[in-house]
């Protein structure tokens, strides 16, 4: 029951993160920027609009928003945020989360191709390209954490995990992954719609109205998901709502600083970026073996 409430709260809160990050970025740029509640206004706007759907598009295009939302939400549901005895850990473990995200990505990619536009295909191609590097790195990072906790059950991870050098390294690689997955600079840029640079947005290009809203919403969910994973890993000793929120805030600050301080990379530099993350986790594993 507590889980349900917590989950609903999270659902309601997750757009806020996006707002906060934008706000921080603007403030760091010495601008006023939109209020932190801007994402909510956007979502409401999208949801209250009608849709325009391409005549080339098939049912896959229409079904995708639901599937993406469902997969992301389920993944989020598996993760124990505040309440440490998540009954749903019976449904799946840490790896299952990754696979679930894969489901959403698969359909989003298809939806990119579906309406027979050039940009969509471009987005798809880049998305699957990045994904095929992100996934192994993620698995490696998770392996580090799971190894040092001795299990992949998320509840037990939260309870068993304790800080050591390898988990810290893993956490850093997780942050890099999170940047990639939430399509932020230097991998991707949420704010632009310039076809040369956009990846995630390119796939959403044909969406409008309620579906777009749904997709935006699931993007926020995904963001929250990754942030909370990192939050679990970082200083697991300090858990509970307050600490959680603090950690999330800290992460948002970090991310916005990163976004400001770096510029977007060429697509093929992404490989180096991610492989660096991979190397980090491999080093973490070695550290584990050496028992540092």
């Amino acid at each position, binding site marked *: 029951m507590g889980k349900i409430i917590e989950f609903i709260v999270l659902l309601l809160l997750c757009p806020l993160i996006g707002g906060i990050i934008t706000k921080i970025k603007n403030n760091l740029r010495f601008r006023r920027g939109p209020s932190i509640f801007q994402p909510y206004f956007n979502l409401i706007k999208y949801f209250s609009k009608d849709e325009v759907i391409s*005549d080339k598009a098939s049912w896959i295009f229409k079904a995708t928003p639901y599937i993406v939302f469902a997969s992301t939400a389920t993944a989020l549901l598996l993760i124990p945020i505040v309440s440490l005895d998540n009954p749903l850990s019976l449904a*799946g473990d840490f790896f299952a989360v*990754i696979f679930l995200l*894969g489901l959403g990505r698969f359909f989003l990619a*298809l939806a990119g191709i579906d309406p027979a536009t050039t940009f969509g295909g471009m987005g798809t191609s880049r998305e699957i390209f990045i994904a095929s590097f992100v996934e192994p790195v993620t698995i490696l990072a998770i392996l580090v954490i799971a*190894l040092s906790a001795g299990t992949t059950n998320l509840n037990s991870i939260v309870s068993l995990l304790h800080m050591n050098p390898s988990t810290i390294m893993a956490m850093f690689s997780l942050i890099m992954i999170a940047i990639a997955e939430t399509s932020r600079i230097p991998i991707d840029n949420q704010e632009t719609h310039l076809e040369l640079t956009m990846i995630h947005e390119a796939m959403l290009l044909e969406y409008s109205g309620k579906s777009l809203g749904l997709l935006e919403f699931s993007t926020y969910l995904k963001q929250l998901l990754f942030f909370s994973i990192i939050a679990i890993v970082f200083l697991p000793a300090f858990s509970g709502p307050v600490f959680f929120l603090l950690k999330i805030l800290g992460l948002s600050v970090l991310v916005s600083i990163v976004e400001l301080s770096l510029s977007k990379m060429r697509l093929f530099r992404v490989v180096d970026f991610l492989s660096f993350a991979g190397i980090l986790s491999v080093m973490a594993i070695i550290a584990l*073996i050496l028992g540092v």
Partner: protein
Amino acid sequence: MLFILFVLSMLMVVVEANVFHFLIAWELMSLVSYFLVIFDTENKKSIEAGTIYIVMTHFGTALLIIAFLLMYRHSGSFDFNTIQASLSSMSSMQRNIIFLLLFFGFGTKAGIVPLHIWLPYAHPQAPSHISSVMSGVMIKTAIYGMIRFIIIMLGVSSLWWGELIMVFAAITCLVGVLYALMENDIKTVLAYSSVENIGIILLGIGSSMIFIKAGLPILATLSMCAALYHLVNHAVFKGLLFLGAGSVYRATGTRNLEKLGGLINKMPWTCSFFLIGSMAISALPPLNGFVSEWLLLIVLFLGAAALTGGLKLFICLAAAVLSMTGALAAACFVKAFGITFLARPRSPKAENAKESNFLMNFGMAILATLVVLLGLGGVYIIEVLVRVSQTILGSDIDPISINNIILRPQPAQNIYLSPLILAVLLFSFAALAYLLKRLFGKEKTVTAGTWDCGYYKLTSRNEYTGTGISKPLRIAFSFFLLPFRKIEKIRETRYFIKSFSYETHTTKVFREYLYKVFLGQMFRFARNMRGIQIGSIHIYLGYICLTIILLIVFVGRF
């Protein structure tokens, strides 16, 4: 007729309890499948494919024969049990040799890289239902052989066996899926993905062998079980996919992705079955591919947790390779499905395709439901497979606890998976999303043309092509794929180019730098040998003199 014989021979392979009969059944299987490959004898390509296939498989068989004869030499019998009994007293040196022979012998049939060379030729050439059986079942007989002869009869005697198998398996996974991504012929894509899946299965088997040596019987059983489970799954969804490809080919008359597209409206049933197949093969929850790969991943994790030192890292890297394979496979099937069925038709052939008849769809429907059931009810299948792998490894510890729908790999660990619950959650959230939409009033949709940036005539030529989609990966892996492009321009004047054609291909490293070179050397050598038969009778007589003289000089030697 041939088909029945084919199935029979495969059954024989699996049931024989005598090496000699096994060998004969094996050869029979190869022979029949050869005839199935060259089924359409008019076609030059299929003959070539058949030749490559039969030669490679005979090479494998030669290795097997040698291995069997070595076993026979030691045990003096062809019966499985007697051999098994006597092999325990064999020297480790011989064991290793026999293991290598068996591994590469069966590996040729299974299509491990770099012995996979025949597979992408042979499978696409056969009629689709045949290729589905070939990919689904025939190459699995090789896996059967490995389990039967290496694990059961020979017995895992040193650690590096497992490591060797895992290394080859990892290479096989990555190479297979990369080539699958680069191909544009739909059946070739499927064939290469068979290579990849064999790799995944071998990962399981190899790790199980490692665990046996490392004294982790539970994990050994578990990973064996995962391998078997993936074997079954692959049989099902690869069969499904090949059938789908077959009906696409039948409807459009082409297998080239670049000529397909937009079939989702023309042949909805085939499309949805193919979609299920592709989801399963790219390990998406809650379908069966997901369950088996998850299980394998978990096993690897547990292994990594239990082992220490270099092996820990080794296993972790294997897990990374596995997940990378999964991601690439997903990419591959996004491409395959998306380009084939979605967007606009890219050619008149695809333009006027018809849905295939009921029976074909029915066949696919059966397999599709199987895919779903194997996913949701995977728990029960695993229950059975666990028994099987226990008998294989002769261990009786129960590596898995199952309360009705929840799978719990190792009793010690509290790791759970329940595809069913996941499915339920997914559906409920989809419903939730729908409600969320309805919350803000009734859904009204307008259909309009795709946004064309004001460019008023958007044709199928503006779509992303299959080649285009896989381009970033082609560039990222160019160190291995060695892509090259063919550009030809037809100019009217120096400045005005009338038509411009651009193809890009990848170099098949193993074919170019392994087989071509080897064959080239062999033929060059043979051509030089023609100098022996130079045509001059005097020299011929000279040979005779020489022989006599040499023999008489060295008579003492004999």
